[in-house]
């Protein structure tokens, strides 16, 4: 009985809306059943939007995962002063939630065409980021990835810190007293212990990037076609108005996330075999 509120909540805010989106994805404007919207997902430009979204999510999840793990380990391991860790977790708590329009603005103000950093590099060091030589632009896929990493890395730090705490000092000492090198310790012990949490965290980061809307929209105004941004276009744009295709795109997102889980669950099981 105690779980009743949870199920009610899940029903009202997860299952009901998801069900409506799924039903809408298979309807045309008149409300008749159709596969047309779903078929559209496999054609350009919709396929392109999914490729973009998956690519950006994978890159930022994996890169953010690795960087976050390394930073978290460096801050938590023996020998690092205690205050480093508390400062890092406080900062991460803030930065992981710093997204959307303010984050986009912050990056535009620093790395944009007229950003402070861009101007400094250009005027003081003679490096023209946006010039023909480097050709960098914040308003491209790479730019979006850089901006996403800003919240992905701190999120990784927060999520992985408890797992790093679980790495007991004794194991390391035991390994080295048996003559293991640092690499051997990490390869045979460290990574294997961390793997289940690492996989879980990367899946979380993937979902986090995959569903992000406001940041990319505020940054590029839709110049980089991502699925959530395009769903917005289909629902309330002046130009493309096709709510059912929007719902089909949302349904496609469910499928991608479900596929992620299908890969994740068996991997998780294999990697956590040693725990049983």
């Amino acid at each position, binding site marked *: 009985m105690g779980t009743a509120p949870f199920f009610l909540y899940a029903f009202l805010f997860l299952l009901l809306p998801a069900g409506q989106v799924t039903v809408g994805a298979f309807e045309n404007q008149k409300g008749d059943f159709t596969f047309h919207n779903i078929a559209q997902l496999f054609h350009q*430009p919709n396929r392109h939007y999914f490729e973009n979204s998956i690519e950006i999510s994978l890159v930022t999840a994996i890169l953010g995962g690795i960087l976050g793990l390394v930073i978290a380990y460096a801050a938590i391991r023996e020998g690092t002063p205690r205050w480093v860790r508390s400062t890092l977790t406080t900062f991460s708590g803030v930065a992981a939630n710093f997204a959307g329009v303010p984050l986009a603005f912050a990056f535009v103000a620093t790395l944009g065409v*007229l950003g402070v950093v861009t101007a400094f590099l250009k005027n003081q060091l003679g490096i023209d980021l946006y010039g023909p030589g480097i050709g960098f632009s914040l308003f491209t896929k790479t730019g979006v990835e850089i901006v996403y990493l800003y919240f992905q890395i701190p999120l990784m730090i927060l999520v992985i810190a408890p797992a790093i705490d679980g790495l007991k000092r004794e194991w390391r000492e035991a390994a080295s007293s048996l003559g293991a090198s640092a690499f051997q310790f990490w390869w045979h012990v460290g990574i294997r212990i961390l793997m289940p949490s690492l996989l879980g965290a990367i899946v979380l980061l993937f979902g986090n990037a995959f569903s992000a809307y406001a940041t990319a929209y505020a940054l590029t105004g839709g110049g980089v*076609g991502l699925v959530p941004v395009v769903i917005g276009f289909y629902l309330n*744009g*002046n130009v493309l108005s096709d709510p059912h295709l929007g719902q089909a795109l949302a349904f496609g997102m469910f499928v991608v996330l479900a596929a992620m889980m299908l890969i994740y669950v068996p991997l998780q099981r294999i990697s956590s075999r040693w725990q049983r």
Partner: protein
Amino acid sequence: MEDYQEQEYEFLRRLDEERLDRRKLLKRGLAAGAGLTILSLPEAALAARAKALANPPLHGKDMTLADLVKAAKKEGKLNVIALPHDWANYGEIISTFKKKYGLAMDEANPQGSSSEENQAIRSLKGDSRAPDVVDDSPAFAIAGANEGLFAKYFNTKFKTIPRSMKDGRGFWVGDYWGAISFGVNTAVVQNVPKTWADLMKPDYRNKVALNGSPLTSGSAVAGVFAAALANGGSISNVEPGIEFFAKLKQVGNFIPIQANPQTIASGQTPIVIDWDYLNLAYIKEFPSAKIKVVVPSSGAYGAYYCQAINADAPHPFAARLWQEFLYSDQGQLLWLKGGSHPALFNDLAKRKVIPKALLAALPSASSYANVKFAGPSQQTKAKALIASEWPTKVGS
């Protein structure tokens, strides 16, 4: 389709005249029989008048302005939607209307899109918060009229509005139009581009922006239309416009940032392809940016917006008063002051009621000589092509 509408319009116009004639005849008949009916006449006339006042009029001249104002005042309020104050001088139009008639105005969702305006009529049906009037793009005005969202109303200036800019059935009337222009921040770019070809120059690296993505913004679609017109395309073929932006991106001049007042003021988007009335408004708003507005002579593309009244308007008389105000000389000149060309611009010019200073603030009339408008079917075709090609060719 258009011929059909023309015919219908002619028919309605004749019907209108006929009705007037019949009324005149009736009056004459009444005058002849005055001796007999003199006792019953005032009562009948009063009843007819009361009946006419109870229902909102179909024609502007069915009711005197004084009666309309009185009825609107009784309602006390007007609900509008999606009217940004820095768009086409709506800020001043709204405050003038409020002051002139002493009505309160409820302004919902100022940044809303046409689709959201129609959606508000649908979803707030019967609600006192529903918008009384909408300012839609033509595609949504036509769709809304066919869906039965709007009330018919022939305002007193209906006949003066150019034919290509109104619905013959009276569901909507074109209100103002603009043409695509370059808004140039001369604090950043000293050499002002004059033509579409100029935009390709290496001086303008990372400097040219649209007002949003043409996948969501009507003004950006218009930018593509205009580029198409300048590069061998036509209003029924926008492919060259898409190719133009693809090339502009390839040479590194196009930046996919959505231009807005902040990016324009800061110089982040030094050259903005947008409606002339929006760019002109920035001149006053950001004097330090020293904005110059150019309407490129090759590739002049224009579009108009449409006024329509909600069929279930919570304040039907105030809604009609709003339309009468907008089409009065005062309302029309307020739009012109915002840099947009009101629907009755040619009529105003003919009657010489436009102040000289107002005309001088606009780009020269000759730039607008070849301005072209796209019809709904051309719009649909262009949008479909943009939707399928833009994301891969120009987006990333």
